[in-house]
């Protein structure tokens, strides 16, 4: 007996090394700043209203930058979640335990006003196991019980560049009566295992092994869309007593619609005020505009996200009283205002943001982060039927304009009959254009004064509209100055204005700029060299290193026009002018010409219209060199030089 214990003690000895660095295959170390040794996620659906997610993650840090990302663990949670445990340990290169995380080393912090929220229950718990000596391996284990089953976790064990993956598994166990819905993204063969049934439970399994590190490439879709993933969603769910079904867009829409039911009651005086518009403004579009103006002048965006309040709108009454609300509350409120004015409209959910991927339409699930309003207008006399989209959180947005924040994508309409996925407005090259006229008065020493008038329309004006409405003159000047690629200049005047829209629902911003440009022309003996395309040069595309891997993702179609009048110093004439350039490709057309006007002024005219060739927003990787060639030729043409020479020289 005694001997057995002794033997057991001896056998136990020092713990066996875990995850030694030398066990990593050389191919996985190539180009890797870190190697994910294991990422094992287990999701257990307890009921329609509760799931438990546990994660075991082990990462070897090879490069110092990776430690900040993978040597530290941050787990976000809110009032609908409970973080059951967070454990950690760190090992040296040989795999010997360096330190076991103690509870006192786990920190907790409210996220406060970050992310634009006035109040949120979102918090983060984090632990730091970074080490002074590389390489080292961190191991974290945590488990969350979530009472918000509207969202199931996603699984993407490799999501960053320069990170290799050794092994990852995903296991989801759910009552067979609550079937799992999932969408596999770019999984290699053999990654999925057929589900198994044991008693009342069904278990789904996926695994990934040995994936070398990848690198992000320019003009490519985000890596999250290019790496394997499994997206999960429930078929039926329940949040805070609100049960719903996610098997179709219709049902997700229905659930959300019902969540807001009865919350659209306005104070009677306000209802009456809106009803009055029916008499004063019989034209529906004009009336809707009045309602929108009223909204913009009397409310502001203040975000409060607490518990179910992250998905359920605040009552319209509360917005009427306080004059503020978040996107759901303001859209719901505006919907109520419009209805009172005899204009039916629908709240729509959308994934907002210039870089937000469009909805994965084939996989109904909660993919949205914003609410907007959609108002159908019936045909009236000679006016055809139309749909007006309204952004209700902005006090300055043009009536009916969505822009790069919510345009060119799909939104989920919330109707009494359920959800319907529809397209928001499309913005092509004409709705993303910039027209500029520059007058440059050059003196004999190469200094110049310039006036520049730039009109931007549609998507091209989005940031300038924000600048106009949201920034003071000093900030505007700083912004504009930071985008002038000139080696030295002084802004003598700057004025931003928003002229009335010439095209409905397509706002524009005009920038009028005065510049002092010392040494804008280079002196070379008696000659002056100047590049007339002062402000509109296309930046060079980075050179491709090695074969292109990622598909080519092109920016939105655009139209850019520049006219530069170059007023010569007295006694100077052009010695040579750049040849006209005309370039045509599948990606757009480019022309530039430089001519002498009758009064001796030089006129440079440049136009670039870019487009996305048919075939969606991304193109095969092989197209990159073609596109790069096109942009390189433009860049070269944009540096065309005029040589001026003093008369009699």
């Amino acid at each position: 007996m005694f001997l057995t214990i002794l033997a057991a003690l001896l056998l136990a000895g020092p713990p066996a090394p875990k995850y030694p660095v030398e066990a990593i295959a050389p191919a996985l170390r190539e180009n890797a700043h870190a190697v994910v040794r294991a990422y094992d996620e287990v999701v257990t659906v307890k009921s329609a209203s509760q799931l438990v997610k546990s994660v075991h993650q082990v990462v070897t840090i090879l490069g110092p930058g990776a430690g900040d990302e993978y040597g530290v663990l941050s787990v976000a949670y809110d009032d609908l979640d409970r973080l059951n445990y967070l454990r950690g340990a760190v090992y040296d290169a040989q795999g010997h335990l360096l330190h076991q995380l103690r509870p006192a080393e786990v920190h907790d912090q409210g996220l406060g006003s970050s992310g634009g929220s006035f109040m949120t229950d979102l918090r983060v718990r984090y632990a730091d196991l970074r080490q002074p000596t590389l390489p080292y391996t961190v191991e974290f284990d945590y488990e969350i019980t979530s009472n918000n089953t509207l969202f199931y976790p996603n699984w993407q064990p490799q999501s960053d560049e320069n990170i290799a993956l050794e092994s990852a598994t995903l296991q989801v166990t759910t009552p067979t009566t609550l079937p799992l819905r999932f969408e596999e993204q770019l999984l290699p063969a053999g990654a999925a295992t057929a589900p198994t049934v044991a008693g009342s439970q069904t278990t789904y399994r996926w695994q990934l092994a040995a994936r070398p590190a990848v690198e992000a490439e320019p003009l490519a879709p985000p890596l999250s869309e290019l790496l394997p993933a499994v997206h999960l969603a429930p078929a039926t769910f329940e949040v805070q007593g609100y049960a719903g079904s996610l098997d179709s867009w219709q049902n997700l829409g229905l659930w959300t619609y019902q969540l807001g039911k009865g919350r659209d009651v306005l104070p009677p005086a306000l209802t009456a005020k809106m009803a009055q518009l029916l008499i004063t403004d019989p034209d529906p579009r004009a009336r809707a505009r009045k309602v929108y103006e009223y909204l913009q002048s009397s409310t502001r965006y203040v975000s409060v996200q607490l518990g179910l309040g992250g998905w359920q709108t605040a009552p319209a009454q509360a917005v009427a009283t306080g004059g503020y609300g978040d996107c759901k509350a303001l859209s719901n409120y505006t919907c109520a205002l419009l209805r009172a004015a005899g204009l039916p409209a629908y709240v729509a959910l959308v994934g907002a943001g210039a870089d937000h991927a469009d909805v994965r339409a084939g996989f109904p699930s909660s993919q949205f982060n914003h609410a907007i309003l959609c108002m159908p207008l019936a045909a009236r006399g000679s006016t055809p039927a139309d749909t007006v989209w309204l952004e209700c959180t902005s006090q300055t947005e043009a009536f009916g304009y969505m822009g790069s924040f919510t345009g060119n994508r799909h939104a989920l309409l919330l109707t009494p009959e359920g959800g319907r996925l529809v397209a928001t407005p499309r913005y092509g090259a004409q709705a993303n254009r910039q027209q500029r006229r520059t007058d440059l008065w050059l003196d004999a020493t190469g200094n110049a004064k310039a006036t520049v008038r730039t009109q931007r329309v549609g998507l091209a004006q989005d940031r300038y509209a924000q600048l106009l409405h949201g920034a003071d003159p000093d900030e505007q000047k700083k912004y504009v100055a930071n985008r002038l690629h000139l080696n030295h200049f002084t802004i003598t005047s700057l004025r931003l204005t928003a002229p009335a829209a010439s095209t409905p629902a397509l706002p524009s911003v005009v920038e009028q700029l005065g510049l002092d440009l010392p040494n804008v022309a280079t002196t070379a003996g008696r000659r002056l060299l100047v590049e007339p395309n002062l402000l509109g040069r296309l930046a060079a595309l980075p050179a491709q290193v090695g074969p292109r891997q990622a598909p080519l993702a092109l920016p939105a179609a655009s139209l850019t026009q520049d006219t530069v009048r170059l007023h010569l110093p007295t006694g100077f004439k052009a010695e040579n002018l750049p040849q006209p350039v005309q370039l045509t490709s599948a990606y757009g057309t480019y022309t530039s010409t430089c001519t002498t006007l009758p009064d001796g002024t030089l006129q440079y005219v440049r136009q670039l219209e870019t487009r996305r060739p048919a075939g969606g927003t991304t193109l095969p990787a092989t197209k990159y060199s073609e596109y790069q060639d096109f942009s390189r030729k433009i860049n070269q043409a944009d540096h065309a030089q005029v040589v001026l020479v003093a008369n009699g020289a």
Partner: protein
Amino acid sequence: MNKHLRIVILGAAFGLPAAAMAQAPSAPVKSVTIKFGQPAPADFEAKNFVGDSAASAVVLYDFGSTRFRLNGLRFQLESDRVTRIKVLKKSGYDVATVEVPLYHQGQAEEKLTSLRGFTYNEAGGKIEKVKLDAGTTFAEERTKNVRIRKFTLPNVREGAVIEYAYTVSSDFLFNFQDWSFQREIPTRWSEFQATIPEYFDYKMVMQGYEPLALQTQEQVSAQYTAHESGGIAMSGERTSASSETIMARATSYHWAMQNVPALRDEPYMTTMRDYVARLNFELAGQRMPGQTYQNVTGSWPKINADLRASDMFGGQLGRVGFLAEALKPLIAQYPDPATRAAAVRQLIMQAVKYDGTNGYSASGPLRRSYELHRGTAADVNLLLIAALREAGLPAEPVLLSTRSHGRVNQFFPLLEQFNYVVGVLPLDEKQELLLDATDPLLPCGLLPTRCLSQVGRLVPSKEGEGRWVNLTPAQRHLHFQDIKLTLDAQGNLSGQVREEHGGYAAAPVREKLLSVGEKKYLTELAGRHSGWEVPTYKFSAINDPAKTLSLSYELRQAASTTSSAQELYINPLAAFVEAQNPFRDEKRKYPVDFGSLRQDVLVLTLTLPAGYAAELPKPTTLTLPDNGGRYLYSATSPTPGTVQFVSRLTLDKPVYGAEEYGSLREFYRLALAKQAEALVLRKQ
């Protein structure tokens, strides 16, 4: 007129003779007052805001007052605040959302009470008044010791006037709140009052670039009522509740600023905290009735003695016996103090990683940090100092304030001004080595850029004053390029570049290299220039901060046009120098603070195509006033068929005053213009 930084030392509650107290300005200023809850019609007249067209909102009135009261038998701070703001534009709506941080520790907590607020809007010639619903306020546990109370005013529209008032009570007498007279929007009137009884000695420091409109102080008498609640005494006797009123002398202070401009962010600043017009309070001592004066801070010898006695500072410096074994071979191997110090620093850096937290006091026993392999700046550097001493090197701690923490006021022996500690090791009469082990990318003797805040304070190991230590580094921010290019008759360029980053220029490049890798670094470098190809490259000393970081690469650039001309204009320097003047603004209000001196040198040798001759640009020398810096440019032809350019830009000050800004900007303009000058090549 140039404005200079004002650091005015105001009178303390006692201890300073009356003559030392600053005088109120000569022209009497009419105090602004408001009636809370009653809108002023003038606030709704457009003509009163004509001058504010640039502002999104204007603070009309901001009033704070802090007094003392007794809570039971303990003194508490009680502070009122009343603020009224005019919202001019939609972009100013954010002012309607207010956050009040409240500190708590153990049972003691700061409390916010009597919150009230109103929004006034003009509608149809009448002023509508809407009340803040106190039920719509939120509390958030931001961190372990800080709770945030937040509220937002209702019905905020363009032209609205909002006002709010609240009271904060605090048991933390050391946490006497600073008063900022300035914000990111203009302020019409900002006023602060404090009534401080004779029991407390607060040091008051005024900083910023704005003048006071009002400044008075008077002796008053104050009453404080102590309440004792009833209960059962130890003896078992029942005691009844009692209260007693004490009379005390107190000083009532009063400060105000009028028409304070908005605070602006500018490049090359340390932290906005250094520039805002603000009044700081620091508890220096207290003398309770019937007790002697208790110095809380006071003098350098006292601070030094406290630090030496502190368990988390001096107490830790002698407790590193656990390092003795590891240090032994270093002592034997490196007899020279500087080399030994570098070896000890290396040992500490390999053992303990800086976690990004700053401080001058250890977060716990140094042994624990050593075992954890991680620690705050104080843990790492106190461990370094202790290890140096253990290795027989007489290192001393130097307290400093990081650039983001703000400037140190040398007039005041205040510990709270500091947030960091480094070590200093005297080498000989003239030289001393400043030591920090938080950044392995820096060589021994170079402090991290965050520490470059002009002065630090040495805490001597024996009794004494200590001294100020100059933190301005002798090492510069050094960038050197040696470029050899050959131009052919078609306009194609090819050649070799050797680029060196030394001193303060090296660490950021090393950091970037280690995070993105050599290949990506090169791709980015080449990508900045149209048509550049870099077939081969080689880095050296990436992982050896003691050496200069150098990069050699081969370069090819195809001609942009194919025609071969009689005359060629080329701009060989353009790709290798700064493309833009870093000083874009015409004017500057605050000093330009680089932290270290700088030098950028470029030597470019160009071999011309056969049969071409060059017209050489003229040489130039530029100087900054007051020996602030120099720029040299020359183009020569050392051998026929070659041109050699030398461009050398030197900045000899770490900080340039706002009044020097104009010449600094012009200096850069002229240097850049010279670098952009074209070289004319003619066919012979």
